[in-house]
């Protein structure tokens, strides 16, 4: 009984993760400019992969794999926003344009 429960839970995690990954990919393709695409990639993508790692942790059951999976998840979730942040800063500083429909550019206002 418990085994079916875990299997269902893992399957659920996997499917939700995959869904997030798909959403991220679609976002990446359809969104107009660099900065919006970064939203999709870093947030949805990270969550998607993170859930997958959790699924593995749950499915495996023995302590060492659980620990490593959690470490992986934690590490991955930690680095993704930082890399997005760095990338956005660099792109903006180099003057890559925002989409013309974008309403405000707070970083620009803050700079000057």
């Amino acid at each position, binding site marked *: 009984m418990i085994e079916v429960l875990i299997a269902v839970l893992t399957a659920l995690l996997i499917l939700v993760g995959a869904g997030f990954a798909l959403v991220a990919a679609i976002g990446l393709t359809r969104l107009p400019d660099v900065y919006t695409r970064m939203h999709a990639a870093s947030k949805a993508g990270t969550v998607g992969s993170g859930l997958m790692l959790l699924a593995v942790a749950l499915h495996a059951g023995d302590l060492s794999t659980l620990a490593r999976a959690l470490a992986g998840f934690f590490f991955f979730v930690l*680095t993704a926003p930082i890399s997005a942040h760095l990338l956005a800063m660099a792109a903006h500083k180099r003057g890559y344009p925002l989409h013309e429909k974008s309403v405000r550019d707070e970083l620009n206002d803050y700079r000057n």
Partner: protein
Amino acid sequence: MNTLILRTVAPVLTALMLLFSVFVLLRGHNEPGGGFIGGLIAASALAIYGIAFGVSAVRRAIRFHPMAIAGSGLLLATLSGLVSIFAGVPFMTGLWIYPEILGVEVPLATVMSFDIGVYLVVVGAITSIALALEQEE
């Protein structure tokens, strides 16, 4: 490239990665890992630290010139091969001893010191390349 966020996270990240790289190195004999991959991870960790704090910080952090690290690694690897002379077996034969440390039987071997040698060489060489490339900035 010294944004505040990166500078705060970089030390933690580098420490974590170095720890992970040593972990991968030491357990390499029975599971995927080993000197080469451990070295690569350590080199990436130092690269991140370099990007965050600049080259001089890295040189201060590792205290020795990266090429010296690579050199000592090569020396260690060769010596661990030469140890077999005393055991009267051909060059590069793995010698195993099982000392009792704190009640736990710890298998030590020339093979492991050889792997550590490989690890040091890889770290030394790649870090020196990365630092040399970033030298000018």
